């Protein structure tokens, strides 16, 4: 009787499938909004295609698309005149150093594939502003493009360095995450500041965080963030800039870490990052650091 059972079940399945068959298929030749947004290409689109899509497969979305962004925020798209200055700066400060150190194949494989550009800052309820966000190793959102200036632009004052520097921080931070997610950071790294990671990082500041051996307040949030904050800050501040950060630590933290302990932790994490770049990616971190920092100095100092 088992045969019968299978027989009927088979038939039943056929009935189900058969019943979906209809004579007229819907006309789906031209479904709105699913074919991607189109517009007449401008020289700016061509520049982005030639400079970023062809060599690295990185797309840049500068035209407004609310669905790439937080729906509860008032934001505005960037001024077209800011797109090339920003993306060419990104190329000099992030792409070129990694391509030179890691090779173009390495870079193409791991780089985030989409940049979304926003003209204004993203204002938070507490009055602070967000200058960059990222999602899933694929997308990086850069804000405040309309106020972007580097030192080649007229009217540049040193205070203008804050916005580009924050952009570099975000990009190097996110790329650090991608590297970490592909080849995990050394387990020793998580042990260095074990017990000091806290969800309360938001209520501290960089100065207090450094007294505990963290490079920024955000680094206190988890080993995961600590690792890439180390990478990002070391790269954008350069070796002597990082040394200055370490040497500036004084006093004992509110959690009882002495200045010497804090310095030792930062140095230990520094050497673990350098070691990780060497072993995992065959990249000499200090050379990479010099390249990034030199590019940044040329850009904003």
């Amino acid at each position, binding site marked *: *009787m088992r045969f*019968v*059972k299978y027989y*009927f079940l088979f*038939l*039943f399945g056929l*009935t*189900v499938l*058969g*019943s*979906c068959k*209809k004579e*007229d298929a*819907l*006309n*789906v030749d*031209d*479904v*709105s*909004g699913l074919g991607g*947004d189109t*517009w*007449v290409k*401008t020289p700016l689109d061509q520049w982005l295609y030639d400079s970023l899509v062809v060599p690295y497969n990185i797309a840049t979305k*500068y*035209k*407004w*698309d*609310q669905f790439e962004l937080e729906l509860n*925020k*008032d*934001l*505005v*798209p*960037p*001024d*077209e005149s800011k797109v090339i200055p920003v993306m060419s700066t990104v190329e000099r400060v992030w792409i070129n150093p990694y391509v030179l150190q890691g090779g173009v194949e390495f870079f193409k494989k791991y780089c985030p594939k989409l940049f979304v550009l926003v*003209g*204004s*800052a*993203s*204002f938070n309820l507490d*009055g602070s502003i967000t200058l960059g966000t990222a999602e899933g190793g694929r997308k990086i959102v850069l804000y405040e493009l*309309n*106020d972007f200036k580097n030192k080649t632009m007229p009217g540049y004052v040193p205070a203008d360095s804050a916005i580009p520097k924050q952009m570099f921080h975000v990009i190097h931070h996110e790329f650090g995450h991608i590297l970490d997610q592909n080849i995990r950071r050394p387990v020793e790294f998580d042990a260095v500041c074990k017990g000091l990671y806290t969800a309360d990082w938001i209520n501290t*500041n960089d*100065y*207090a965080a450094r007294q505990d051996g963290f490079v920024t307040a955000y680094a206190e949030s988890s080993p995961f963030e600590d690792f890439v904050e180390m990478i990002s800050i070391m790269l954008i501040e350069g070796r002597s800039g990082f040394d200055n950060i370490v040497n500036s630590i004084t006093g004992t933290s509110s959690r009882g870490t002495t200045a010497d302990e804090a310095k030792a932790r930062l140095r230990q994490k520094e050497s673990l990052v350098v070691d990780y770049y060497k072993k995992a990616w065959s990249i000499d971190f200090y050379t990479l650091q010099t390249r990034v920092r030199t590019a940044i100095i040329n850009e904003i100092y």
Partner: protein
Amino acid sequence: MNLKDFYWKIVPALFFFSALVFSSCKKEETRVFDQTPDTRINEALTQYGSALTSSSAGWNATIKTGTGGIYHFHFRFNESNRVFMFADINLETASTAKESSYRLKALQTPALIFDTYSYLHILADPNGSVNGGADGQGLISDFEFGFDSLATDSILLTGRVHGTKLTLIKATQQDLDAWQNGAWANVVAFENINDIQNYFKRVNIGGVNYDLRVDPVARTIAFTWVDGSGNLQQFVTAYYYSSSGVVFETPFNAGSQTINGFDVVGWNAVNFTLTIRVNGAATTIAGAPQPLKVDLGAPQRWRDYALNNGALYWASLNGFTVNGVEDAFGINTLRTDTSQYFYLLYWPKPQGQTFDALAPTFLIPSQNALDLIYGIALTPNFLVDGRVVFSYLFDVVGTYPSTGPAALTRSQFLSAQGYYFIQTGPKTYDMVSAADAKAWITWQFPG
């Protein structure tokens, strides 16, 4: 029931039933509309697109922001997703066309998106320093709009986020010319009225003198005058621009005539005067060193208000405006290693003391707290002519700086001629130098 029965009775029944259910889906397809939704929405987009590009002289656009301001734009759309724009937001937007991009897209409704930064985005920019609105929301405006209706000469749209209404009316060549030949820019030059170095901006209309106070961000204008029985009167209205002048949202009944607005003849950048035409009669707005009538009790009223409302203090965000320059002494640049200038306060009898205090306050971001680092103790002397003169007593808290923005603020504050007070709202006063009315400070009550 044994197993055999089960297969021979139940299963065929199930099969029969399911065949019924599924075959019941088979229907003749009946459509309410002739076309599929996708076809129809693409048709609509095409139709809207060709309407936008069809007007060779472009479109006159009007938008009312969430904060209440009425703004005019001129859009010219071409078929390559480019739009050329003028706007009566400021002198630059009124005189120089800006090119940006637009596209039509099916969102929940067919939508017009101004998708790179343009003059329209100035209103929506969440950075308050761009448009004078609050940080995080700007003037509450839109740049993504859903189409509401389409007629031959007009298109109505509604913003997708804030519901801002945008009206497009087909423009004539004359409308376009009015932007291109500077007629609008000439009108928007009205905002230069605040470049007049004196606090008091005086104009004579129909034989009556008025002091004007214009807020170009909120777009309000206040008239102050002395009535027949010698009392000060005030009228405030919101205004917007037209291609020829300023239009009042509420007409001003000026006794002998009703004023709906005025034509702007031109701004004189040498003498700092603005010539206007009110109901056809030309007149000139110019600076004045004295108020029309001194509000004799205002200084005392100002100080008493703080004493009577929780013994609090008056605060000024930007310090002194001098010769038309806001924060002329740069008080906003005051810093310490751990804190930054927050506001300047005037505190009558702080915490039961016998003196009044003037001090900049500092915000310590890491503690989210305000700090007083230095200040001065002073005594207000109320004069019968309506002036108040402050006399210095001694430094309080710490040693007051002898140079820099704080020192400049102190020496201006202690001006021997003293100050007039102008009440501008229930909790706002302007304190105006009696010497020449070219220095003033705005006080607001934080409570």
